[in-house]
């Protein structure tokens, strides 16, 4: 996959959809293309967050540790981004991500990501929008779950 294809992929990630093409190209160029075999770990729960990942091809599982071992909570498909929370909040990873099939990802380093946000406010605003959207979804889910519990 060439740089320009990656830029195309990035455009389809909601987080980046409003960002200028030239910036996306720069982001793609300065990121590392990394491949994983099925079963390999991208990062583990509790690790320090040093990068975000955009899935280019293949699938990956999001796993959370529990008393009975890891439980799969979600699946990542191409065009999704993962790991951005940990770099934004300076927190450790909240889940483990494991390649389910051979996986191609774009690894965006933390300092690059933050630098881009600082330099291109339009990208930051877009990201805030996406995150706020997610939060309202989560809040709605929570209310549903609570009311389900109360019944």
């Amino acid at each position, binding site marked *: 996959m060439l740089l320009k294809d990656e830029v195309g992929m990035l455009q389809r990630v909601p987080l980046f959809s409003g960002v200028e093409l030239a910036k996306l*190209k720069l982001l793609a160029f300065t990121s590392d293309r990394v491949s994983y075999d099925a079963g390999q770990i991208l990062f583990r729960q509790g690790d320090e967050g040093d990068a975000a990942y955009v899935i280019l091809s293949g699938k990956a599982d999001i796993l959370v540790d529990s008393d009975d071992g890891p439980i799969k909570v979600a699946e990542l498909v191409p065009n999704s981004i993962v790991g951005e929370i940990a770099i934004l909040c300076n927190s450790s990873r909240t889940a483990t991500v494991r390649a389910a099939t051979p996986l191609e990802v774009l690894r965006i380093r933390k300092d690059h990501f933050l630098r881009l946000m600082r330099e291109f406010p339009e990208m930051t605003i877009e990201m805030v929008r996406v995150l706020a959207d997610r939060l309202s979804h989560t809040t709605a889910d929570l209310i549903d779950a609570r009311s389900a519990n109360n019944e």
Partner: protein
Amino acid sequence: MEPSLARYIWTHTRKQQLWILMIVVLSMIPYFMSFDLPKLIVNGPIQGKGFEQPGATQPFMRLHYDLPFIGEVQFFSGFQLDREATLLALSLVFLLLVVINGLFKLYINTYKGRLGERMLRRIRFDLVDRVLRFPPGYFKRVKSAEVATMVKDEVEPLGGFIGDAFLQPVLLGGQALTAMLFIMVQNFWLGMIAVVIVVIQIVLIPRMRRRLIVLGRERQLTARALSGRVGEIVDGIGAVHVHDTSNYERADIAARLGLIFKIRFDLYQWKFMVKFLNNFLAQLTPFLFYMIGGYLVIEGRLDVGQLVAVIGAYKDLPGPMKELIDWDQARQDVQVKYQQVVEQFTVEDLIAPGIGALTIDDPGPMTNPLSAIGLSIADDGGAMLLDRISLQVKPGETVALVSTATGGAEALAEAFARLNWPDSGRVASGADDLLELPEAVTGRRMSYASSDVFLFQASLRDNLLYGLKHAPLTEMTYDGAAADQRRWNIAEAKRSGNPDLDVHSDWINYASAGATGPHDLFEAVRRVLDAVVLSRDILDLGLRSSADVTRHTELARRIVELRAALRARLDEEGLSGLVAPFEPGAYNKEATIGQNLLFGAAAGPQLADRALAANPYFASVLKQAGLDRTFYDMGMEIAEQAIELFADLPPDHPFFQQLAFMSAEEIPAYESLLQRLKNRPYETVADNDRAMIVTLSFAYIEPRHRFGLLSDELMGKIVTARNQFYENLPPELQNAVERYDPAKYIAAATVMDNVLFGRVGNNHPDAPDRIRSILHDILDELGLYGELLNVGLDFNVGAGGRRLTGGQRQKLDIARALLKRPDFLILNRPVSALDQRMQDRVLRNVLEEARRDGHSPAIVWVVTNPAMAMMFDRVIVFDGGQLVEDGTHETLLAGNGIFKELLS
């Protein structure tokens, strides 16, 4: 040191000074003879005196003397020579005298020069010897750069002066006195005039020069302070940048230079003023001669002949006088410099010479307990670090010193290491005061390591073995020229009062490390490095450096085996995709195009990096392969992409680290180049512009940059071009590149590159770590671990060890202390730069290693964390300079004292 320079010189060079004086007097004989000879030649053969008759002859070299009582005695009647023959003979004698005078001059100058240089060597050595004997407290007050400049620069002028120190005044004084006497004989009163003027010169000029001396001293002090400050800036460059104080430093330096300029300018003004006055006085005398002498002649009390003779004789007076005054100036100048230096080097409490005396045989073990008796130590400000402490450390005992922030345990450790001297009380080994024991005992039977590590700018190995170099243990045998050189070294060292110890001898005390010689020393080294958990770091340094194949032959010999083992292991673990190996007939996708073309390691500047594209032979190969145009187009494409991506970013943007093709500074140059070359036919582009563009393509790696510029066909062509390049390699490039050969070691590449013999894939984030850990295993399996550790030990640690991390430096210091296998091991917060887990691990390892082979040294460890005290036989707690608790870990824990408080 001797405060008077003259006495210092006289004491050490008396004999030589007298000898050279004698030679100078002797040289006067041919010198005066050569004055007389021209007269003989002109009067005799040229004007024909004594040859009035044709065919007349004169005796030549007739030796006859009028002796008292005996009358005339003729030793030799001489050769009878005619006029032409006499001219020839006398001219030849003249030539002979010229040669003899020249030889005398040569000998005298050489002798004086050598004398001066030997003295300079002696003074410098004496000074450094004193530095080695200064009490430790002194070093808190001096700047190293100032001491260095004193030893190097400030005593330098002494060398030039020493040869003339006694000779010049005797010689010039004699000349001046003779001229003076001659004047006196001609006319007493004219003589008196000359005497009065000379006396005025002698009295006045040195008086005026007194100010010169003061200025000279100031000049010396300010210059020394300047070099001290420059040294400080270099040492503290980090602090300067961190605090944005570079302009403060600039201001300080400029102010100092201004002051130095002012002093120097004052000095010049005054100096030329004195010179003017001196010249004026010298010229005043003839004025008086003409006026008073002329008046006397007119009056008829002096005849003209006498006046002319006096004025003639006076011509010979100012020369020597001036030189004499110059000599005096030089003397004062040098004397000031010398005094200044000596003052700085005259220190109370100098360590007695016997303490550091050379001792070849190892002293016996220290079997007495080490004790502090009523020991008090104050810091420079007068605060008590330790207040009347008494305690005893028995041989074989392990003691943890635990200290509150104001405890004073560090001061005790320093006192045990003789680095901090007691203000009252003492430190003793048995009944002996520790400070009176020779360093040969404490330096070999005791070890000390602290958090404040100093490493020398040398290899890791040299630093590690430094603690074993007490005395030259082997007698080196030299033959041929080397033996002559060695004999000369010894003789010269003795003449300058330097020791003649051979620095090339083997100084390493193997026995003290528990080894028998160079062959098994490495085992001991490896054990201590393992103990301080430094081996892995050194191994990695070894992997990253290029090994000296002349010494590490084993590595070069087994490289093929090593490569195969790595490959096999990677296959076995399903990791073969991690490394793309170099294969002579194939393109390596993970390497740059340049690396694929050259397919070797550049061993010189001709083919390295940017020079590759510009190399004419290389360019011709590309042209032949039809690739020149391709790479040019590719370079243009890359330049466009790079500029499009990066042109808007500020030059210090971190993204530039990702841009392998050009640096941020080059972007504008490439931008204008691109403007110029766009739409220009390839054929009309100048060679160096082409090279600028082509070189961009050489940095391209498809999987990393992903511009889609590489096709299978192109890769094939590149491999063909590679082969063509090597087929006709011109002789001048034969040594500029080492071709990759799967069966050969590449000396110009790092060990890691040699073992990998390929490129680590760009899309495996943790590949380097995994490969390194696999490699560590393989090295162990193949028995090459030691060899590689040895390569790593060649690593140069840089000035003050700054190429190592703080933690590595501390570990190395402990390893050095352990290697000696001491009876008393004193460790003063030695691992403070490490994290707690590593501290515990090193502590455990060190205790174990120190006790290996039934050895049981006493260990005194100032711990950074009270929890570490658990590992020791005995725990001593300090607070406010007092010893507050002393007992086993259990008893202290049981009590409710400070220790328990510190632990919680």
